[in-house]
């Protein structure tokens, strides 16, 4: 079992992701450089946070055209599990691997804080959490406002593909707990095949109690354990 962490110029969460997966959880992780020609037989790909290519043009837009993204698209389209965190989520949307788009926060300001998320545990990435568990994971973004057309949102909701929603500590998902203006408090969604998850909060930054929370580890553990089970 091997995790590949994609690194674009401007990415800055790769070392945190590597630390959370390899040092804390003990899963072999390696970096995939954006100019690399192949994925080196990794089993699970993470697109970490940061400002790939400076996020010039639109967040995630230039990265979606980088050479390695062609390989990652092939990997994803053949069912390989892919997790996009923050900028990674933006790249997945720009690459049409996930529907919708992330636009500027409603406040027009960058926001960094711990967010409470209500978990939908009906996915490969969250099956180790309890149903509707509330987890504490930091957010850190200027453009995390998830938007999509009405049909897409309806479809996501009907197919139970909203995986995380911003909520209160007790699970209230009303507008006042929405830090960025996302439709329906959406913090993370999954594709229809269930192998691609995009989320704005940073699970790798919630990897040990001493830094405030280790609630993010369940995401990495869930996907790894589902893969181990399925051989």
């Amino acid at each position, binding site marked *: 079992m091997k995790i590949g962490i994609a690194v674009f*110029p*401007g990415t*800055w*969460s790769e*070392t*945190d992701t590597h*630390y*959370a997966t390899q040092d804390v959880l003990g899963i072999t992780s390696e970096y995939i450089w954006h*100019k690399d020609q192949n994925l080196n037989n990794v089993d699970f790909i993470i697109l970490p946070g*940061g*400002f790939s*290519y*400076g*996020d*010039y043009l639109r967040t995630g837009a230039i990265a979606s055209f980088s050479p390695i993204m062609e390989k990652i698209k092939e990997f994803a389209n053949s069912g390989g599990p892919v997790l996009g965190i923050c900028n990674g989520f933006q790249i997945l949307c720009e690459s049409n691997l996930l529907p919708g788009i992330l636009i500027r926060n409603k406040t027009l*300001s*960058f*926001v*960094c*804080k711990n967010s409470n998320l209500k978990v939908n545990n009906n996915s490969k990435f969250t099956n180790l959490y309890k149903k509707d568990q509330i987890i504490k994971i*930091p957010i*850190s973004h*200027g453009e995390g406002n998830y938007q999509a057309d009405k049909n897409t949102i309806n479809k996501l909701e009907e197919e139970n593909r909203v995986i995380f929603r911003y909520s209160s500590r007790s699970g209230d998902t009303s507008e006042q707990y929405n830090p960025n203006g996302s439709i329906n408090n959406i913090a993370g969604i999954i594709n229809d095949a269930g192998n691609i998850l995009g989320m704005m909060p*940073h699970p*790798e*930054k919630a*990897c*040990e109690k*001493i*830094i*405030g929370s280790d609630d993010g580890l369940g995401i990495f553990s869930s996907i790894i354990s589902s893969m181990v089970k399925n051989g």
Partner: protein
Amino acid sequence: MVKEETLKELALSRSEYNLILDKLDREPNDLELGLFGALWSEHCGYKHTKKLLRSIKSTSEFTLTEAGAENAGAVNIGSNKAIVMKIESHNHPSAVEPYEGAATGVGGIVRDIFAMGARPIALLNSLRFSNLESDRNVQIAKGVIEGISGYGNCLGIPNIGGECFFDESYESNPLVNAMCVGLVDADKILSAKADRPGDLLIIIGAETGRDGIHGASGLASQNFEETIELRSAVQVGNPFLEKLLIEACLEISNFNELVGMQDCGAAGITSAAIEMAERSELGLKIDVSKVPVKEDSMTPYEIMLSESQERMLIAVKKNQHQRIFDILEKWDLKCSIIGEFIEGNEVQIFDGEKIISQTSIEALTSPPEYDLSLLSKGYKNKKNKIKIKEEYKNFDKKIINKYLFEILGSNNLISKESIYRKYDHHVQTNTVVEPGSDAAVIRIKGTDKYLIFSCDGNSRFSLINPDVGAQINIAEACRNISVLGGEPISLTDGLNFGDPTKPKGAHELIETFKGFNKACKVFEIPIISGNASLFNEGHNSSINPTPIIGAMGIMNNKTKIINKNFMNEGDYIGVIGKSLWGTENGLSGSEFQSFFDKTISGEININLDFEEKIQKNIRNLIKNNLINSATDISLGGLIMGLIKSCEKNNLGVNIDKSIPNNWAGALFGEDQSRIIFSFDPKNEKLIKESLSNVDWEKIGLVSKENIKFENIFFESDDLFLRYNKGFSTDI
């Protein structure tokens, strides 16, 4: 004969020009005059502060660098790890163009840190604005905060703390001081110098453009009124490029072929390259035609003095640059060999084949050193006895309530959360105590260490008495570290002052250094690096003298983490200090005095030995896991200390004492050397033993809600709402 305007543009005086003639024994050409203007500026040459800087304690058992010898100061924290830290100001650029000024301020200080081979692991900042009553002031504050956010967040460095303070003295002159902290293996600190003749000088990063010419000599060395026109002197930042530079430079930092590294900051290639040669005790040949430029028609003068951002210089062993160039190519960074170090002590500047300047490095790098003491003698600080209104001395519940609710409208007292939420403070996954407490705590992975950082200053105290103000500045910086359990081990200073060629400015600088000296001795702590920003004047008045201290402390990671917040209902509350209610001078220079009486006056005092003792005592309590929270009594006095201790966990206090008639001083006085702490009642006996040699008293207990004294109480919901409501105008 050189024209007056030319000298003015370069911020050189006629007598300095004459000194240049003496040193060269000829007239300098235009390029050379530009080099002198840059290198003899305060920013590069420290001509008004060098004498004073030399007087400061700058080394200790922990230090690995000598002050001023490198891009930043370094201290050993054990396990072969070193911390590199420094503060730098970007005041003038931020006044002209707030967003880019602040952004490039962050960029500059970060380059100073990774130039030493250190991975930047934390940013802090200290900001000073005028009140938010005019559109211009709001625009400046907003722009600066957005600039720090926009640039810093892109780099993946956590912004873990700092302060933001409002006072009218910053009306035309906001202050933006940024501090950066880096981590490096103690035996791998890079030096900003070459090794031997033949070493190559290579420029990396951005192309050189016409931006920021005369930034150091112009912006940072003249009175502010003249600089509003110098828009082209402000640079524009590209944080993406900076991020690539960080990664590439750290990747090559361990290569044997790499000899030294230096950032291109103020005065661009001129300062960076010539200072490198000076440190190396070598000569230097530079060919300006080899410097990659943004525009074809740039003159040698422009190339040498441009302050384009995101450029680094490296010294590399002769003919051994290929492996380094490969790494730079991997990161898509431009680079070019622009010169080489040579025997001798001259800098020779070529434009292709043609030599265009040949100057002694010693002459360029030894500006006159001014002795400010004579000038300073012409200035006497006004001594004012504090005036306390009758109303402040008659206990009256209604009146007290009115004053408390009004002062909570002060932007200085309320929570700064709306600012620090704009900065990423979680990245790198080391932040143990987030912004919002007296200091921030980070862990160092792979060691048993926590590091504690704070960055702040109190210009009102320095205005009343710059000597005592400076002592308080260091005492409070160390106290902020101590109340979280850290042992303070190093300081960095940001000196923000008015015109040092006027008696007032000279006096304030000299007295500040006196105060620093006294405090450094008592706390046995060195100032390992720093920055001087002088000439902060405009509209016929200077800013309040504003020394800023960045402090670092260290503690073992077995220590239980506490912060300002009361944790449990029923815990006892104690105050360490001579007197809970302070002294009659407590309102001197306080927020209360400034807010209601519109004045900054009176007398300020600190007993450094006592201060050192209380800090030792609070650290011991934390080390022995006896207490659950600690914070000092500072801005806003006792009542603000209590509100801040209660608000996070929505608790209250029952104080079993009556507020005395002198209620204003008692609640809002800012006397030094007082610490509020809370503890489990079962630890009372041990605490009594531990504090047997220091003044302290138990004052009450943590309650479910409201702030209650025996003769008055305040509803906590209302107080917390006001404390957390955000600034009077959204910034």
